[in-house]
């Protein structure tokens, strides 16, 4: 679907006209991310991050396919082949640091993209499917990132593989056989390394496929915007190209400066020294932590220290960790406020910022050793995390009194909208057009 005023693809050159008849790929691109896609005119810089995430996936696939040309997924040589890439392969250090830091940058971008969705209510009707597909992408990314971190076969790789697959052993009855099945052995070794490599290569292409669905679902209602008010007329929108291609180009430039700085000047800043020690199944590093992008969930996992009635603490932690992600699937139905944007929701806004701080604290605690007072802080932060999504949001959305909203995007931008009649303050916005 598109808005009736969308530009129509009209190829001028005979070749393009011929192509349009045989395979209308240019038309498809034109309507998807070209001048044929009308987008609200008031998108702010937070709307850049979707494009940046797509860009990072391309970077990861490109550098990853190349690294796979030089890497050997065998426990005997995996570590050395990684160092071979760093030392002997032409520009190997750039490709590997690019890929390792690329994973971090991908998560940075995706986290900002997700929090943007949370603040501006992008998960709400009619865009639930976009959000659901986004959560699927996020889960796939976490699996891919975890398996990729195992590949260099350093100490953190090995113990990460052991601990994360150990989570499954918490499941009653089938836990231990399941862990052995996942690893293809009793501890991580060749079998695990080979299957992780295979899946690490495969999953990004699955992610790419889900991203296509994500964008497809986006084009049905069209992009949301900071006011949360749906597009009403042509003056509310601009064509994606050149307006947002230009803005995304600038955003990409700023992002690349940061990315390049990390790769060239601080490539190990987000890594862990222990992963430069070859895997040793007989000795655990003093302080094992996953990559930073898992830290909030790692903190939740470790926050459960006491058995809860008949549920062992370990199982409780695993359930909570997966629950913390899976609850995002229910978000569109937990927050039922008809107002989308946090801009007009005074109470929601306060809790949103609290959540932001809370997730930062969880992340911080997740990276620290499991000692007091860090465990207690993680417990308090985890309580807020679950309370925010499962208790506070449903209650806030029924008791909150939203602030007056602009009638249209045009009015929000220009201060007035000649064609529009001002909505009475406090009234619910018109349903999506």
């Amino acid at each position: 679907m598109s808005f009736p005023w969308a530009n129509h693809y009209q190829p001028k050159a005979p070749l393009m006209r011929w192509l349009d008849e045989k395979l209308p790929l240019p038309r498809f691109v034109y309507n998807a991310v070209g001048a044929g896609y009308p987008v609200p005119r008031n998108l702010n810089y937070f709307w850049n991050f979707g494009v940046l995430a797509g860009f990072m996936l391309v970077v990861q696939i490109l550098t990853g396919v190349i690294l796979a040309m030089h890497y050997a997924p065998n426990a005997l040589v995996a570590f050395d082949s990684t160092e071979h890439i760093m030392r002997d392969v032409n520009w190997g250090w750039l490709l590997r640091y690019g890929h390792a830091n690329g994973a971090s940058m991908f998560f940075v971008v995706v986290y900002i993209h997700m929090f943007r969705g949370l603040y501006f209510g992008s998960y709400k009707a009619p865009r639930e499917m976009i959000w659901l597909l986004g959560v699927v992408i996020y889960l796939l990314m976490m699996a891919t990132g975890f398996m990729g971190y195992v590949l260099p076969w350093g100490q953190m790789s090995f113990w990460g593989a052991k601990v994360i697959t150990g989570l499954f052993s918490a499941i009653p009855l089938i836990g231990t056989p399941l862990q052995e099945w996942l690893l293809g052995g009793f501890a991580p070794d060749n079998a695990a390394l080979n299957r992780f490599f295979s899946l690490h290569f495969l999953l990004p292409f699955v992610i790419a496929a889900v991203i296509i669905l994500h964008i497809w679902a986006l084009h049905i209602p069209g992009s949301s915007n900071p006011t949360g008010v749906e597009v009403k007329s042509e003056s509310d929108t601009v064509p994606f190209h050149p307006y947002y291609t230009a803005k995304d180009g600038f955003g990409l430039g700023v992002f690349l400066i940061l990315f390049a700085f990390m790769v060239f000047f601080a490539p190990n800043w987000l890594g862990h020294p222990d992963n430069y020690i070859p895997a040793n199944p007989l000795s655990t590093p003093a302080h094992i932590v996953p990559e930073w992008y898992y830290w909030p969930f790692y903190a939740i996992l470790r926050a459960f220290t006491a058995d809860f009635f008949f549920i062992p603490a370990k199982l409780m932690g695993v359930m909570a960790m997966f629950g913390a992600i899976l609850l995002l699937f229910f978000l569109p139905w937990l927050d039922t406020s008809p107002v989308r944007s946090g801009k007009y929701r005074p109470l929601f806004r306060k809790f949103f910022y609290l959540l932001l701080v809370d997730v930062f604290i969880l992340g911080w605690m997740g990276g620290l050793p499991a000692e007091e007072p860090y465990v207690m802080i993680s417990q308090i932060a985890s309580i807020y995390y679950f309370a925010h999504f499962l208790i506070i949001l449903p209650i806030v959305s029924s008791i909150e009194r939203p602030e007056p909203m602009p009638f249209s995007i045009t009015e929000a931008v220009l201060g007035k909208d000649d064609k529009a009649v001002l909505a009475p303050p406090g009234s619910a916005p018109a349903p999506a057009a």
Partner: protein
Amino acid sequence: MAQEAIIETPNPETGGGAPDGADDGVRRRDFINIAAVSFAGIGGVAALYPLISQMAPSADVLAESSVEIDIASIQPGQSIKAVFRKQPVFIRNLTPPEMAEARKVSVDSLRDPETLGQRTKPGKENWLITMGVCTHLGCVPLGAAAGEVKGEFGGYFCPCHGSHYDTAARIRKGPAPTNLEVPEYVFNSDTVVKIG
């Protein structure tokens, strides 16, 4: 064309009959767009360089591009197979009759005319050093190891498609187009040869 692609939206200033002053402004602004897109293009092309050059031989492979071989123990009439750049190289200590036979051949009658002298180093014409790679399709010819068939001309014989090489490793019969390749080498001393 590029300008059109960049500014496709209705633009009041370019919408025909603009005053001259405004026209200059438009041209300057278009220039910025073109410059930005061209710069991005340059960056994209530059980024391809590492992505392409990573496939070229790596430093450890290049380090093996020359090899030193001790030839002291090779008696006349014997030969060895050494490894040079992951391929066999034949080092053969020719006997005087073998050298005589190689010199006897009329060079003009050869498919790839070369004398024994051209294929060896002066003063060390008994040392025939060639790649052990048939110039037809890359098989390893027989004749270097003791007891192997040496072919009709007493040199090497490639069993894949029946190429026969003589005692100077020159092609005499069969499909191979040229003589066995002589790699670059120097004698570091009477007993050590450096290939590559």
